[in-house]
């Protein structure tokens, strides 16, 4: 079993890679870091600047396997927290993610990524948090569906217009 720090590093890199791939396919998506120093990050693993309706498009991909939603021109900042777990996300972990919203109010949306599924308690916590802030959780199986829609483009092809979805 890999060390905790190694699992965390791998999870963050994998999600960064998938989000970056989405940015290769779709316009106006930047994968950025909120902290570039060695200071505590207050629950921000990855920060995104993306169209305000990107999460609607990702939600549709998760539920139907594809989406024709056109991405908006206006951008928002999104906080992403990654949990590289091969187990369900418990209520306590979901609450920990929600508790960090107040420290990160400059983000328009808060996304959690990881876990095999959400427990009922975790779903309730996230539903309650959604009443005060836009909160999403993409489980590992959800993110696999998203990843399938945005395959890696060979580096030699990244400037081809057909490498970008309409």
């Amino acid at each position: 079993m890999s060390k905790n720090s190694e699992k965390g590093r791998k999870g963050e890199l994998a999600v960064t890679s998938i989000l970056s791939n989405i940015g290769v396919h779709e316009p106006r998506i930047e994968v950025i870091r909120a902290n570039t120093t060695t200071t505590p990050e207050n629950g921000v693993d990855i920060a995104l600047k993306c169209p305000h309706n990107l999460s609607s498009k990702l939600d549709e991909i998760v539920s139907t396997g594809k989406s024709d939603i056109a991405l908006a021109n206006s951008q928002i900042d999104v906080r992403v927290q990654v949990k590289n777990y091969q187990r369900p996300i418990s209520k306590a972990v979901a609450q920990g993610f929600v508790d960090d919203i107040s420290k990160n109010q400059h983000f328009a949306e808060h996304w959690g990524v990881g876990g095999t599924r959400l427990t009922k308690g975790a779903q309730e916590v996230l539903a309650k948090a959604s009443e005060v802030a836009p909160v999403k959780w993409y489980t590992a199986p959800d993110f696999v569906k998203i990843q399938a829609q945005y395959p890696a483009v060979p580096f030699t092809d990244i400037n081809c217009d057909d490498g970008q979805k309409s």
Partner: protein
Amino acid sequence: MRQNCRQKTKLGHFTAPVLILQIRKDFSMSQKLMLVKYELEGDIPVDESSENLRSAHAPDELIDWAAENELLSEIKIKESAGEVADIPVSIINDSEDRCLESILQYVESTLIRCIEDAYSHISGSLLISKELDNNFEVLHLWLEVRKVIKEKKEEYCNNCNIKLVVG
């Protein structure tokens, strides 16, 4: 053409986040140490009943050390009352007093090291403020971790309802 230029600029950013994540690896702390109160059903905690009492971001260094010293356990809890216990949860082992004592000692030695690090950035009356900001942030983080462990040790030591959860 304009579209292509924009894509090239964006791809210039493409590798940057990866590099930054590698640099800050030692301070990665996606996980928290949480003091969680559960209702028990036949001695087994029920996830749906849980309530987070206190939490702190847990440095990976701490979690790795706890795992290496067998102070980290995985228990299975019930998702809801009446269900099978099949939700794995990582907790700091509290079955013996020495576990909490060991982890507290580790945190306190780390705090002393943090104070020494901060002191090393003071030379006479000269303060290296950028380094000190970082030292104080790290010191604050470990102080918060200490509060969580101390609360479990001093107020809920023999309370099976209250667990130190890592997640």
